[in-house]
């Protein structure tokens, strides 16, 4: 390797590491500050608390995030809409993608076009009438209002992603099953699902992560305090702003991100591959 090449390689690493640090800093600073005394948080750039001054003092108060409930309560509430949402998304999107990727039928072109059109349409275009619909069905202020839709394959992004993935699987695989006398659902279940596993996990995980971040949905559809989800509870920290409680705010934010971070790092492979599939070529 020539010197010039070595310098170039070093320069690239330097850029990558610098950018990586810049991206990581807000999170590292948040985590570090959760263990600092209030007076150590601001006025410096340090991530870690000063030597010997680390503290767990703020965690109990942060865990008791509202007057009536601990964070555990809001985690559970979040799961109460998120688990059905993940199941609904995975089931309905798999069936839809299977029909589009594996069957030819009159109207298929229209179906695919509609998937793409709805993919480009923002969610908010439908929100007000859906609110009225849910009101008439008595679904306002229920967790169902946050997942009913997902059982009907409205997640065009995921449908599209799964179609792309299915197209990479050779058709001979399900045709062989067809000869063996498998019906379409059994072919899907016994032959395709095992192959589709990675994309199904990706879809499930992304639905989960986006659901953890969902703030506007709960804000609109849920009212009662006992149905508040984690995102709404965290927002509460900003509302009754108490200047002396920074440590508590950081500890709560940190605990609020722990599930997301833990899931991301155990399953990072699926996320990275999912992001790449979503941009897959036609």
């Amino acid at each position: 390797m020539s010197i010039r090449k070595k310098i170039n390689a070093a320069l690239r690493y330097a850029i990558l590491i610098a950018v990586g640090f810049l991206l990581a800093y807000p999170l590292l600073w948040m985590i570090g500050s959760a263990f600092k005394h209030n007076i150590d948080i601001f006025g410096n750039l340090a991530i870690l608390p000063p030597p010997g001054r680390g503290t767990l003092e703020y965690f109990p108060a942060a865990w008791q995030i509202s007057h009536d409930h601990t964070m555990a309560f809001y985690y559970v509430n979040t799961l109460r809409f998120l688990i059905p949402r993940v199941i609904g998304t995975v089931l309905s999107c798999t069936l839809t993608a299977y029909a589009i990727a594996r069957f030819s039928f009159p109207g298929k072109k229209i179906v695919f076009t509609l998937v793409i059109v709805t993919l480009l349409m923002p969610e908010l275009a439908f929100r007000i009438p859906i609110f009225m619909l849910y009101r008439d069905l008595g679904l306002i202020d229920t967790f169902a209002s946050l997942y009913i839709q997902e059982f009907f394959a409205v997640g065009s992004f995921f449908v599209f992603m799964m179609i792309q993935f299915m197209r990479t699987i050779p058709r001979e695989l399900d045709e062989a099953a067809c000869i063996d006398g498998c019906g379409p659902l059994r072919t899907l279940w016994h032959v395709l699902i095992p192959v589709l596993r990675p994309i199904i996990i990706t879809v499930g995980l992304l639905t989960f992560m986006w659901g953890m971040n969902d703030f506007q949905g709960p804000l609109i559809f849920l009212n009662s305090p006992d149905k508040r989800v984690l995102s709404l509870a965290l927002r509460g920290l900003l509302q009754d702003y108490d200047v002396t409680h920074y440590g508590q705010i950081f500890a709560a934010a940190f605990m609020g991100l722990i599930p997301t971070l833990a899931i991301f790092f155990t399953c990072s492979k699926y996320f990275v591959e999912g992001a790449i599939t979503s941009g897959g070529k036609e």
Partner: protein
Amino acid sequence: MLKPGEHKRNKWLTPYLLLLPWIIGILLFRAYPIVMSFWYSLRDFHPIMGDRGFIGLNNYSWLLFRFPSFWRSVTATLRYVLIGTPMVLAAALFIAFILNFKLKGVNLFRTAYYVPSILGGNVAVSIVWIQLFSANGPVNQILSVIGLQPISWLRSETFAPFTLIFLSAWQFGSVMLIFLAALQNVSQSLYEAASIDGAGKWKQFVSITMPIITPVILFNTVNVLLRHFQEFNAAFLITNRGPNQATDFLNILIYEYAFVRFQFGIASAMTWLFLAAIGLLTLILFLSSKYWVHYSD
């Protein structure tokens, strides 16, 4: 269970049965709402006070000609979209360009850079962002280290939008991954021909790689643009739409008129103007793609 002969006879029905959930979904949660939304936009409609009748295009004309806040919101949204989108795309493409060199540890960087994309919309991140840009926060600390005056980020009409733009740029990772996958698909032989001609890496990138990945650039541009148009969480939580509407994005203004004031007619008309703006920009992008996007084979 079906009898053997029956199975074959009903075969044409199979795809439609599989599509049944989707068909119900598109009718009930997409087609019906979009029609109703247009219907509401022509009425003086309030879900509690009731429907006070058809008023033609009055909601639209009120928004366009007698409601200055709407235009301030349009300006704020466009500012955010038009600065944020190129920033995200440029950062994503640049880092993808660097990661595309055969470097050790690419996977590690790929994963690490993707973390902000997953967390970005979380309320907890918004909370941290407020602290980052607070008077004594790290960002102002850095400014003072390099000898600049601190900025009151969240209270300045000029700088508040940038706290949100930075948050969006922070999440360039998912876009970068799509660029990187595209770059890795570019055939190596094209470069070999070019390096014989003595073209440098950057020149190769601009003259060979860029044209090949233009379809992916278009795909990402549309995606990032749409995402910026719909920004809600950060502006609602970090800057609280202010100061003086500098970050009062359309998605939030529509939310306010729909679910705080319950003026469904006005909010629906606003939604349609919003859709028209998005549609127009997307259309311009697609039409212009004829001139700059190269589809091979």
